[in-house]
Each structure stands twice: as structure tokens, then as C-alpha cells.
């Protein structure tokens, strides 16, 4: 049972590895959002 849980979590980790990732100990920045508004007065 333990093995299966471990495998399941390993698979989850593998799935997530496809995303952009940052290692711990490195800065995790919060970049600004893109801008889309078409309301001219907003600018």
C-alpha cells in the first residue's frame, strides 16, 4: 500500500515537472500582469 502511495505521489511530481518551476532557495518573483484594458481612460 505504501509503495502505491509513493508511486502515486511520484507520478504527481512528474506531472508537475512539466510546468515552469523554480528550485527552493532561488527567488520566486512575482512578475507584473499583462495589460489588456481597452478603456482609454484607464491609461
Amino acid at each position, binding site marked *: 500500500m505504501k509503495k502505491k502511495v509513493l508511486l502515486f505521489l*511520484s507520478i504527481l511530481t*512528474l506531472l508537475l515537472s512539466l510546468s515552469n518551476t523554480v528550485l527552493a532557495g532561488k527567488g520566486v518573483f512575482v512578475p507584473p500582469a499583462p495589460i489588456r484594458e481597452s478603456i482609454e481612460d484607464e491609461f
Partner: protein
Amino acid sequence: MTTKNITIGQNIRRIRKDFNLRQYEIAGEDVTRNLISLIENDKTPIYHNVANIISVNINRILYERGLDIYIQPEDLLNPERYDARKEANKYIEKLTKRLEEKNYEFQIEELNHIESFLNKWNFIDKKIKIYELLGDIFYNAKDSNREYYYYLKALEISYEHPFMKDRYKIILKLVYNCILTEKFDEAIRLCNFALSTQDNIPDKYKGVFYYNLALGYYNKHEYDRCLEELTKAKYYIEEENYRVLNSILMLEGICHSNIKNFDSALSSFTKLLDVIKANNAPEDICLAYINIIQIHIDTNNREKVLEFKDKVVDYIEKVDKNSFYLPKILNSIANVFHYLGEYEVAEKYLLEALLSSLDHKDTSLFPEIFWQLLKLYEETNSFHKINDIIADVMPIIYNFQINKEFAIILKLIYIYIKQDRPLDATYLIEKLLDKEV
């Protein structure tokens, strides 16, 4: 006047009067005013080429008056069609009302009905407007797939409208969607396309396009290109334009940090803090501080991290719970506590970040935050804690996109499990993860 008893001549007169045009205006230089008079009085038939000339003249005048209306030759020749334009206006009113009332629920039949109406009549201007409104509705409903679909349709059809104004605004909405759904190449292509082909973009919008272009390169880890585009963005953005200037300086600072140019990074953030403090925006101050801390983590300056940490924690309380940035801020502050070895606090923030990412427009957030959480559980040997959140996250994991290569990997792992070979499965996973990370 109803369609049933209206002639083509009467229809042309009706359209002319609706837009307050004179006969000589719609005649232009290619046909005579006298011919228009004969046509309107049904004393001579109208051929398609003449209808085409008249519609071009009408559209030119409407464009000069700043109206976003496009009369097609068929509208002149078919009175029933011109009536149907009014039906289209009703759809536009209904959709606008939905947006105002924040009513974003659609039955599939309703959407099909709108589509078949538009396909039947093919009103170019109305199609553009309706598809853009549908894009706006799905943007607000956080349905990025359908948002993209309708904006793209609006953009494609806009090329059939030679007098189309403000096409760049639709492109900008698409760019935004592409960045949040991680279609960075497409976002870059769209920005470059808009900047090189749309000659009516006001400077402030040019600055925004260059900024979004820079953001596309940032996400592709092309930091030098990002900085180049930010320089161009700054050229077009006036100092009073706080919101865009704030975003430009923030991105510039992060970019410098990513290329280990830490002095320039801190210099950008110092300028940013000057701009922000003058405008007293708590969320922006929080964002600036949190990014500054990340620079100190990168340079392993523990003292500075500790100095800024408390400031950020105070500001987090002031950030709006519906803020676009909240999950990212929580993820970032979790990283601070992780760096400081305070794993329980890091976990607390990551769990908060994960929950607030579940219903977020930015689809890249959930995997990024979940990844950090798994790393933390791995590091602290506490994978069992995953059970507490598994029910919330599984629906999203089931929706992860799986390509052929990845399906092969999963299939291999599946076979190893079935054959009770956990060591082989673990080895395969570790090998692949090493390559990825």
C-alpha cells in the same frame, strides 16, 4: 416602412436617411447624383457594381464620422437584410447588458442561435462586435479557451472590414489571453504584428504593446530581449501613466535579477518604490517588497531577507482577497519562509496560495504552486499531508494536458505498477525529473 412593401430604391433611400447622408455624398465621383435619384425612385435598376460603389462611399463617410458601421452592397440590395441588421443590434444590446449585469452563464443553444444568425446574414461589423462581446463575457467568466476563440474570430473577421477602427484593441485582448495561457510565442507574434501593421495605435497603447511583448520574452526566459522591449515601452509611456510605468519598472528589476545583474535590479526597484510611494498603493508596495526580497534570496543575503520579511507580511494583510496577484504573492512569501527554514509557515502560505489559484485566470499558477508544495513535502518528508488537499486538486490534475510523449511515460509507469516493479518505476521517474529540473 416594413420590408414586405419596400423596394430596393426605397431601401437605399431609407439607409441614406438613417445615416443622414445626401444623394451627392453617396454618389461620390464614380456615379452621378442623378443616377442615385433614379435608383431611389425605382426608375432604373441597380447593378451590383453600382451598389458596391455606393457602399464604399457610405462607409468612407461613416468612418470619417468616427462610426464603426460597415454597410455591405447586399444591405442596399436586400431590404430584408437591412432589417436584420436591427436584429443584430438587439443581440449586441443583450450581450452588453449581460456584461453589465455580470451574467456570464450561457446555454449552448443560445450560442448556437447567435452563431447561426450571424452566419445567415454575415454582417461583418456586427459579427466583429458580437464576437468581441462574447470574448469579453468569457474573459470575465474566466473561461480562457472560449475567450480566445471569440477574440480570434473577431480579429479574423475584422480583416473583411476595410475601415475597421481600433483593431489593435482586439489584438491587445488576445495578447493578454495568450500570456495568461502561456502561449508566449503567439503573444509575441501578435504584439509584433500589431506594432508593424496597425498605423493608428496611439502612443500609450504602443507602450502597452511593447510592455506585453517584453513580458512574453520574460516568460520565455529571453531576458535581454525583454529589457530591449522595455526600453521601447518606456519611450512611449508618460511619467503620469502610473500603472504601466509601475509594471515596466517591476519587470525590468526582475529581469535584471534573472541575469544576475543585481545592482541594476535594485536600482529599478528603488525607482519603482519612488513611483509607488507617490501613489500610495498597498498592493503595489507589497509586490515591490516581495520582489526585492527575492533578489536578496538570490544573493543569499539573509539579513536583508529578514529585514524586508516583516514589512511584506504586514502588507499582505492589506492586499485585496480578489487581487490578481494574491496567489503569486502568497507563493512568493512562502518561498521566503522556506529560505529561512520556517517550513510550517511556508506550508501555510503555499496552501493558501494553492486554494486561491484554483479559480484564477492565470492557468500557470496552479501547477507552479502545487510543485512548490510537493517540493516542500518532499524536503520535510511529509508527503502524507497531501491527503488533506487531494480532493480539491484532483479535478485540475485530471484536466492536465497529456501529449503523446508524456502518455508513453505514463504507460510505462503503469506497466511497472501492474508488474509490481516499483523500483523500476521510481528509477524512471527520478531519471526524468532530474532531466526536467
